[in-house]
């Protein structure tokens, strides 16, 4: 950390100098630029931060191995803080100033939606890292995404509930973008899955005690299980308060709880919590034959070695986005945006951290429910819930 901080002054000084020449965009080297605008800071920074680290790590690695199509990649990342207006400005900047070949980013659905028109108009492929289903439904020519949709997570949870014969549930959701969007999807797909939502509660960003909401859920007759949609510190606090109130019903978290950090924050209270998650979280527990195992094991090792932090599925989304682009560009043997776009759309059997991706003109996501695993937390670690009927 000390060397880190010594260099920071040098970097600030260098950057101050760079301000003077910033008017002339660095177009000296003929590199292929990958653009990105992420929520590196702000309330969604635990999305943007691992995403940024992942992109940096792998672009570095790709360049060390000689680049793509014989050309080096250059990464241009801006921090939009999750703010849609800022994201839109950076999108314009990436297109107009940096002249990027592809956009891999947009940590939040709001920021992604604000940026879409820019890339649609410019005709540059845009691989979003945000969860919202509205990004790819309806299909937009230039827009793709890598994370599973909230709807899949809901369906995965509901399938597990049905298997346990629990049909009456309560939902407690964060009022942030992630929690709200997933809650909406769950409400939408509940009837089709044979689930009845008998009670709903919410909590706000930064809330530090959810016992009133949970007390109401506890007192509600007929609640057989509780689903918590949200990310950040909220789910950890909900989980602790859940145990504090000694609520007996099973608690389900969402895929927003996407790193070991959650188990650490929630402590013992996390035991018994179930959640749908990508294979990435349980890399070491996957059976040897699992096609995703090599990919997720390699990514996990690399990320944890490099950053010293537990791996998160959010970083994995960035890995998938980058690799889908790289493979598409290699297939196209060019960085021509139109050709790359066509190849991205033809992505088949791509093994990523999030699942096996099969894109098509009608499906710009390319993941199905099989991408999700149902996990249960036991003794401070993830375990795979055996899936008997799938």
């Amino acid at each position, binding site marked *: 950390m000390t060397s880190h901080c010594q260099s920071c002054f040098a970097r600030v000084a260098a950057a101050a100098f760079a301000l003077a020449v910033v008017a002339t965009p660095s177009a000296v080297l003929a590199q292929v630029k990958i653009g990105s605008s992420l929520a590196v800071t702000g309330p969604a920074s635990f999305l943007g931060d691992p995403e940024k680290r992942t992109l940096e790590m792998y672009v570095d690695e790709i360049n060390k191995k000689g680049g793509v199509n014989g050309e080096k990649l250059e990464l241009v990342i801006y921090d939009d803080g*999750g703010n*849609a207006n800022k994201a839109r400005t950076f999108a314009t*900047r990436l297109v107009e100033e940096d002249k990027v070949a592809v956009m891999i980013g947009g940590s*939040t659905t*709001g920021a992604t939606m*604000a940026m879409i028109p820019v890339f649609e108009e410019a005709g540059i492929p845009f691989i979003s890292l945000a969860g*919202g289903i509205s990004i790819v439904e309806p299909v937009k020519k230039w827009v793709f995404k890598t994370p599973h949709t909230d709807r899949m997570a809901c369906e995965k949870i509901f399938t597990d509930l049905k298997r346990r014969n629990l049909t009456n549930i309560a939902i407690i959701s964060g009022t942030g973008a992630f929690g709200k969007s997933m809650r909406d999807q769950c409400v939408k797909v509940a009837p089709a899955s044979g689930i009845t939502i008998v009670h709903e509660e919410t909590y706000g960003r930064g809330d530090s005690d959810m016992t009133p909401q949970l007390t109401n859920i506890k007192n509600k007759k007929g609640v057989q299980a509780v689903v918590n949609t949200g990310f950040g510190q909220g789910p950890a606090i909900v989980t602790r308060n859940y145990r504090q109130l000694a609520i007996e019903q099973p608690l389900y978290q969402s895929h927003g709880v996407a790193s070991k950090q959650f188990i650490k924050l929630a402590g013992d209270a996390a035991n018994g919590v179930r959640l749908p998650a990508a294979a990435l979280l349980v890399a070491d527990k996957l059976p040897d034959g699992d096609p995703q195992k090599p990919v997720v094991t390699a990514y996990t090792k690399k990320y944890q070695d490099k950053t010293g932090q537990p791996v998160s599925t959010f970083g994995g989304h960035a890995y998938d986005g980058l690799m889908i682009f790289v493979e598409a560009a290699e297939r196209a043997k060019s960085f021509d945006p139109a050709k790359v776009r066509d190849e991205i759309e033809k992505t088949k059997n791509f093994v990523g951290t999030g699942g096996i991706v099969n894109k098509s003109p009608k499906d710009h996501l390319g993941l199905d429910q099989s991408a999700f695993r149902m996990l249960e937390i036991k003794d401070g670690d993830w375990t795979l819930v055996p899936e008997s009927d799938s």
Partner: protein
Amino acid sequence: MSVRPLNERPLAKDMPALGDRAGSAWRTILGPLERYRLTPVIIIAVLIALAPLLFPSAYYYRVAALVYIFALAAIGLNLLMGYAGQVSLGHAGFMGIGAYAVAIGPVHLGVPGWLSLLAGAAISAIVAFVVGRPILRLKGHYLAVATLGFGLLLAIVFTNEAEWTGGPDGMSVPRLVLFGWSVRGSQTWYWVSGVCLVLGAALAFNLIASPAGRAMRAIHDSETAASVLGIDVARTKLMIFVISAIYASVAGSCLALFNGHITPDAADFLTSIELVAMVVLGGMGSIVGSLVGASVLVVLPQVLTVLHDYEHMVLGLVIMGVMIYLRSGIVPSIAMAFRGWRR
């Protein structure tokens, strides 16, 4: 009413003009222009018209358009804060009303965009009127916390009423169509927002130099003195609160129409603080200052991206540095220094 003038000093303007003919010729041209109320507006208009000559790409148009839009909101807030002396930490709420009006109007109610913009302004005015009546009785930090709460309230509504607003992910805003002409693209919006800014600035300068403007400025320094001179303090505060709400609302509508997508960010606490920062950084009580403040806070983050992780650190330092060394705000402090230097 004949009163013997006492201790009458010679009037400066009665004294014989000094200097040569050339100097006085300049003065006859520049003098009235220097005194003319709208000279700063003319200068702003000329700058807006000429700036694109330096723009290499549409990105610059976009950043400049954002500067103008935020400057418009900041000017409105400056009328309230810098001139009338009433703090608002919830002005982004009015931006939000304007922004969601042009989104909800066309999408849910079938009202055309331009009419929605006007409706948004009207709603903002009404909301400001209703809310302002009680809370403007509060003073200083108490007014600050009340307006903060009000802004928060609006942001909560925009976030929670997802059926209308799309929730935290926001909703798309249909393009503005004026007389069959679709207003789109950064360049077009550069001119639209530029015109809005010039109009907004002109109205603000008009107001300041009017009876109502003097009344509002008087309140800033002494409500007591203002009231014994016949100024209805409560009414004047309310009036200026409503006017500044309309400025923010129109700016919010422009922002939403320009971006084509709106999220509750536009209405949240941080945006309110950003607006206040624009006003204070540029200079309270200086319309031009609000434009400068908006420029700094919109452009600076774009420049600071080269610093990556150190961006926020430096942004904080810049704000602190400006406020410490140019404590009246950028424009008034520089103007003061300039005047001192000329003397």
